[in-house]
């Protein structure tokens, strides 16, 4: 799945919107795991070049949590205030107990969201989800052309996605489309938005690739030019004017081309809690790349301990851990120093400013990556697709192709 699937950017927008209003609505509390993301499996029939899942995900495909364990996790998180539930993966539909998870989520009062590639969604299953009380389905789309869709996912899924979109609409679900943007589809933004409108989408997330997991390995192959991003944003704004409130479009700006980092996950251990297929509890998708941190697992002490007391969740809460230039930076509340994983992967120092920041002593690493992505020789290297075979190679250490430059396996 894509990182933006989780909607952190969207949450931030809502938070900001509330700060600006006249005090009718309050801010979202920042002490509870309001969002629970259940990455129920890392298995996936697609092989997306930009997948943010860990490159060694194959390690975690044999020891998935059972239905009972998921239900327990849902109950425990709800007690702690979780209210938005994302069911994600991998492809969650590869599990046959999503129906049971949905029913329990409804019983507990979650607003539940299935994040899917559409593969495996049948009439029978969607009916069961509807009856079970699933609130919405977010479908990933890739391009208007069959060629690019099939290329970037390394599968023939183009026709299927259109069929699934219609199915979602027919069952009265809001249509939420997530489109990851990269070099291969950034020139088609207008057509993509037109397709979304024709499909009757209510929400469209144009999520520029963020470089984690497989997308970091394929960074030079995926990164568009700054000019292309500006143009895409311009087209998006134009389209927004045209469609108005009927279709909400979120354009998630890529951090590599900004001067300031994103407030990653809205703050470490502030609102998001992720439970992975094997039960690890993480404050962000790629946290396992960080050195010297033992992440809690639901099989051990449970979710409440994980969120409140585990050393891992407390490690980067607040700003005590910061170094200069962040520590004395007047802007630190805006971004909390950015992403810890990005800082470590690129610079080898998890406590340093996110290199995306122009004030970071490591900012040259980002500039270098942008330059590399323009180098025809590097561009010409083939994409390494997210396949079990490639993952096994990374997990076993048999391959370190295009990951040597990073300080952990992405």
């Amino acid at each position, binding site marked *: 799945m894509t990182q933006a699937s989780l*909607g952190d950017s*969207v949450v931030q927008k809502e938070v900001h919107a509330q700060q600006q209003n006249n005090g*009718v609505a*309050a801010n979202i509390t920042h002490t509870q795991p*309001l969002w629970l993301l259940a990455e129920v499996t890392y298995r996936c029939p697609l092989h997306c070049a930009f997948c943010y899942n860990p490159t060694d995900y194959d390690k975690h495909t044999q020891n998935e949590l059972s239905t009972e364990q998921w239900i327990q996790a849902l109950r425990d998180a709800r007690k702690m205030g979780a209210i938005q539930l994302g069911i994600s993966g991998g492809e969650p539909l590869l599990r046959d107990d999503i129906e049971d998870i949905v029913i329990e989520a409804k019983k507990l*009062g979650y607003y539940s969201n299935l994040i899917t590639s559409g593969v495996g969604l049948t009439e029978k299953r969607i009916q069961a989800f509807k009856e079970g009380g699933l*609130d919405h389905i977010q479908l990933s789309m890739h391009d208007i052309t069959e060629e690019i869709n099939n290329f970037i996912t390394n599968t023939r899924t183009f026709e299927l996605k259109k069929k699934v979109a219609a199915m979602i609409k027919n069952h009265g679900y809001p249509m939420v489309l997530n489109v990851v943007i990269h070099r291969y589809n950034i020139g088609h933004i207008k057509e993509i938005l037109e397709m979304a409108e024709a499909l009757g989408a209510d929400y469209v997330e144009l999520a520029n690739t963020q470089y984690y997991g497989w997308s970091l390995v394929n960074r030079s192959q995926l990164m568009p030019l700054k000019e292309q991003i500006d143009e895409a944003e311009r087209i998006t704004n134009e389209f927004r004017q045209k469609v108005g409130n009927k279709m909400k479009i979120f354009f998630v700006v890529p951090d590599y081309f900004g001067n300031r980092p994103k407030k990653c996950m809205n703050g470490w251990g502030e609102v998001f809690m992720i439970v992975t297929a094997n039960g690890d509890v993480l404050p962000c998708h790629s946290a396992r790349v960080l050195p010297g941190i033992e992440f809690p697992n639901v099989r051990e002490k449970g979710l409440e301990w994980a969120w409140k007391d585990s050393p891992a969740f407390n490690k980067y809460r607040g700003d005590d851990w910061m170094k200069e230039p962040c520590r004395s930076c007047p802007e630190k509340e805006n971004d909390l120093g950015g992403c810890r994983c990005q800082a470590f992967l690129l610079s080898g120092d998890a406590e340093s400013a996110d290199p995306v920041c122009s004030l970071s002593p490591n900012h040259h690493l980002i500039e270098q990556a942008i330059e590399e992505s323009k180098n025809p020789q590097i561009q010409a290297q083939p994409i390494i697709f997210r396949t079990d075979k490639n993952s096994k190679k990374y997990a076993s250490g048999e391959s370190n192709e295009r990951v040597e430059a990073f300080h952990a396996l992405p």
Partner: protein
Amino acid sequence: MENNIQPTDIYALAFHHRFQWEEAQNSYVILFPEGMVKLHGGAGEVIKRLDGKATVADVVADLKATFPDAQEIEKDIIGMFELAVSKAWLRKVN
């Protein structure tokens, strides 16, 4: 966008939105795809009364009766409608 709230207007929660009491937040919330808004007491009281039949005037009258001591409550209620409509949390039924 101008939202002219008329006393005879009828509003309901927008499609795919859910309104519920959240014990952990000690407040009402509106939930929708990828988002949540926590409502202050007053706002929650307004939305709670939208059943697809009540007019804006009905809501104002009911709230005035429930909270007789509140000052200038009407202005606040209309302000709440304006905000909720501009954020697309509500849809106009009539």
